[in-house]
């Protein structure tokens, strides 16, 4: 009887017979063909890297692109011994180095090894001319990364570098070759996946002298996707020029789209030096530089905010009903918590007299805020700081962590095993002591105030206009935000204001200055604000490390930034 068992048995031996037949065909019938292919070793595999996606600014100006580079490559199996001394002389490198390059790891046998990348055109032509004396050596033209504007937006765009041996082992070899470049910072790192595209390659059959006979199969490399940023290149460039030689961070946000128009950190570095192996010395200089040019001061460094933080203290007190805008305190230049405590000083030694909240913010009176602080707990202030986004993670594409820090009483207890002292609340109220913020956090705070409490998340990659997410609001009453906005207007427009130097003649500006003590060095200089006062279009932050008074150094920069913006966005004459 023919059962399922017999059927199964028959099937198994049929499969084995099929294998046998297939092997007979490959090994006996076509054996000679394959034998010939194998003895001549005539299959070459040429990997082709995909061109990396480009990065544009909002007006489609190129921030990162690819240029052609000439690489000296050699297939070590085809190189004859006479080549070494000749090539060493041409490239001006020791023969030992040359041999080392030849024997460096390759992905496949007969794959070309890169002897020297990015050589000059002249040298490339010289080697091409002497090709007959240099079997196995050739010039390959590849695309390499090029940043046309050097350090202009270096921290935003980032840079690329070659994969290391260890990384290569764990990567998908469909996309990453042994000598592939990967993004190491900024946009290049975060968007590496979409920028890099897909590698291609071709299998070719070559004749005895290594020339291509036919392409056996190939796959075209797929170029990476381009990325468009919200940055305005010209604006960014002008701002970088303004802060040249200083340690500073300037960021400007378009309040309509929440996109960053400029995000400058000085000093910058030239990302081009990371591309070519010829510039390794410059690379070391940059990496070891005491001025840390690689550091993006806007998002990766935290500083005391100084008087800018009074905006938070004021909002906390107003919203909790501890003061009204008309609450008056008297300033005679110094303040004592109790009869025996050490006096704390206002920056204006003669005292501001009896002033209300508007005047206190306008003149940045410390004593007024010491009095306000007496009515608040540190946790009240910390709560409002967090509501306004300080010490909270960012959703910026190139850096989501905000290293800023807002202290509170439980933190103090955990860290120092001590209660919180009221004197520390005074310090906190004027943005000194433990409080640390990044310039971008301050920008976000100002934007929230300018947009009447709408939550703002700065971004830098351009988005579709259609995409309008539901905007949540912060839990602060609108009339209190309005008070703060009016006070910020007075900071610049009143003749007593600390930010007068920022005043521009074409519209009304609102802002707040800050001068954060950083002994033993000069103070950090801050100014943040929005413009114009009615229907704000921009929010900005200017920070100069050890730049001195906020009302002088930063206010002057703000004026320049706004004038530049006006100039660049002037309605074209028709």
């Amino acid at each position, binding site marked *: 009887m023919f059962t399922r068992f017999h059927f199964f*048995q028959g099937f198994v031996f049929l499969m084995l017979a099929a294998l046998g037949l297939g092997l007979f065909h490959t090994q006996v019938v076509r054996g000679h063909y394959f034998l010939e292919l194998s003895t001549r070793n005539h299959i070459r595999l040429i990997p082709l890297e995909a061109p990396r996606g480009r990065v544009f600014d909002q007006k489609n100006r190129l921030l990162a692109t690819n240029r052609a580079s000439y690489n000296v490559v050699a297939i070590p199996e085809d190189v004859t011994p006479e080549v070494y001394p000749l090539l060493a002389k041409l490239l001006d490198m020791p023969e030992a180095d040359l041999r080392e390059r030849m024997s460096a790891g390759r992905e496949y046998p007969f794959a070309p090894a890169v002897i020297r990348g990015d050589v000059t055109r002249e040298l490339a032509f010289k080697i091409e001319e002497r090709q007959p004396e240099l079997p196995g050596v050739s010039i390959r033209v590849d695309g390499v990364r090029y940043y046309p504007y050097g350090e202009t937006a270096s921290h935003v765009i980032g840079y690329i570098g070659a994969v290391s041996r260890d990384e290569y082992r764990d990567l998908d070899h469909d996309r990453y070759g042994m000598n592939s470049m990967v993004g190491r910072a900024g946009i290049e790192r975060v968007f590496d996946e979409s920028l890099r595209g897909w590698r291609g390659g071709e299998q070719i059959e070559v004749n005895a002298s290594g020339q291509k006979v036919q392409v056996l199969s190939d796959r075209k490399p797929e170029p990476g996707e381009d990325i468009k940023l919200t940055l305005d290149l010209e604006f960014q460039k002008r701002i970088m020029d303004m802060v040249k030689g200083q340690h500073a961070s300037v960021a400007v946000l378009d309040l309509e789209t929440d996109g960053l128009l400029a995000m400058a950190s000085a000093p910058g570095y030239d990302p081009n030096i990371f591309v070519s192996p010829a510039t390794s010395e410059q690379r070391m200089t940059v990496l070891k530089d005491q001025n840390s040019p690689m550091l993006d001061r806007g998002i990766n460094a935290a500083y005391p905010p100084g008087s800018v933080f009074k905006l938070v203290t004021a909002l906390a007190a107003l919203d909790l009903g501890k003061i009204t805008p008309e609450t008056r305190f008297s300033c005679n230049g110094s303040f004592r918590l109790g009869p025996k405590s050490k006096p704390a000083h206002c920056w204006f030694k003669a005292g501001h007299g009896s002033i209300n909240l508007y005047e206190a913010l306008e003149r940045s009176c410390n004593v007024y805020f010491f009095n306000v602080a007496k009515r608040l707990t540190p946790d009240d202030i910390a709560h409002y700081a967090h509501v306004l986004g300080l010490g909270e993670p960012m959703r910026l594409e190139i850096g989501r962590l905000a290293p800023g820090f807002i202290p509170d009483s439980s933190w103090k207890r955990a860290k120092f095993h001590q209660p919180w002292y009221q004197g520390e609340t005074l310090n906190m109220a004027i943005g000194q002591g433990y409080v640390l913020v990044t310039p971008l956090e301050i920008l976000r705070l100002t934007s929230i105030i300018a947009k009447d409490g709408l939550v703002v998340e700065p971004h830098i990659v351009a988005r579709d206009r259609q995409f309008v997410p539901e905007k949540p609001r912060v839990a602060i009453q609108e009339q209190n935000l309005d008070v703060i906005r009016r006070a910020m207007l007075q900071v610049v427009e009143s003749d007593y204001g600390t930010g007068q130097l920022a005043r521009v003649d074409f519209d009304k500006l609102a802002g707040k200055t800050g001068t954060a003590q950083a002994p033993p060095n000069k103070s950090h200089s801050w100014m943040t604000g929005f413009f114009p006062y009615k229907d704000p279009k921009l929010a900005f932050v200017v920070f100069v490390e050890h730049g001195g008074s906020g009302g002088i150094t930063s206010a002057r920069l703000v004026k320049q930034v706004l004038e530049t913006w006006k100039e660049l966005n002037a309605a074209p004459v028709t």
Partner: protein
Amino acid sequence: MLRRLLNGIHFPLVFAVIALAAIGMLFIYSASYRDPGNYEVKQVFWVLIGLGVLIGVPFIGYRPFLSVSYFFYVLSLVLLVLVDFFGHKHLGAQRWLSLGPIAIQPSEFAKLATLLAVVNFLGVHHPWEGQIKTVSVALLLLVVPFALIVKQPDLGTALLFIPMSLVMLFLWGVRKRFFIAAFGAAALAVPLAWEFLKEYQKKRLWVFLEPNRDPLGSGYTALQAKIAVGSGGLWGKGYLAGTQSQLHFVPEHHTDFIFCVIGEEWGFLGSLLVLCCYGFLFHSIFLIMQHTTDVKAKMLCGGVLALLLSQVVINIGMTFGLMPIAGLPLPLVSYGGSSFVMTCIALGLVLSVYRERSIF
């Protein structure tokens, strides 16, 4: 004493295992004697352990294995989930789990655990009553580990689940119309599932099915493997005299592509010898199946046979372009401890079916 120990062992099967393991060690040496690593020495060690397991398992018998099969099954699922979180990546796939100094491959373990669990489940349900429910549960048991292995992604191992399930259900006695319905459902499900895949996953599948789409990776390997095997001709180039495999044209020539070395150095006759060894092994399993009346034992042997056969067909088939390049070892021949020992456990279960043939 020794006589009693070896009594009830089906020697032809053991002989086939030893022959294949010996060919394996010979060619592991040929494939790697120029490289550091001493793979052939390590393989001797694994072969000894494997043979110990092969003789040892029949003394436990297959029934205890079946009775704890659900536990093994759940354990293997846990391991498969763990490998997703803690496993280390190699060439873009997450397959290995480190337990101190040893790295284990949960998918290898899951194969056998699933086989046992499904056999146990089908065995207690008679095919004459309520096939729909039984078959659905059995398929569910199969699909969960299958999906987890696809996700790693280890398409090769996942693929083995298909013939294994078909053979088990077939031997259990599933109705023909279910077979046809299952094929129909699968044919309908493919385009649906395709829509859910991400772009890079589609790409990977395409390359898997059609290596020429990726001349850099598996396409190149496929061509070089074919050249290696084909250039062996009828007689081969002689032991240790292969050029293709020795020169690293073919990657992983001591593991997944060991057959290239055999085909190149011993030619068609060598290939035929290997095929005959497998034929003899399968024939022994069939003899054992004929000697048992236990449905569970039959399905167990059939499942093991299906696993081995599909590995052989895929592994040898991919060297001459019949099958896609799937990272599967050639059972009992390729270098690798976990594969060899797992195969020995599976064959040990088959041997124990023979040893218990008189228990009706």
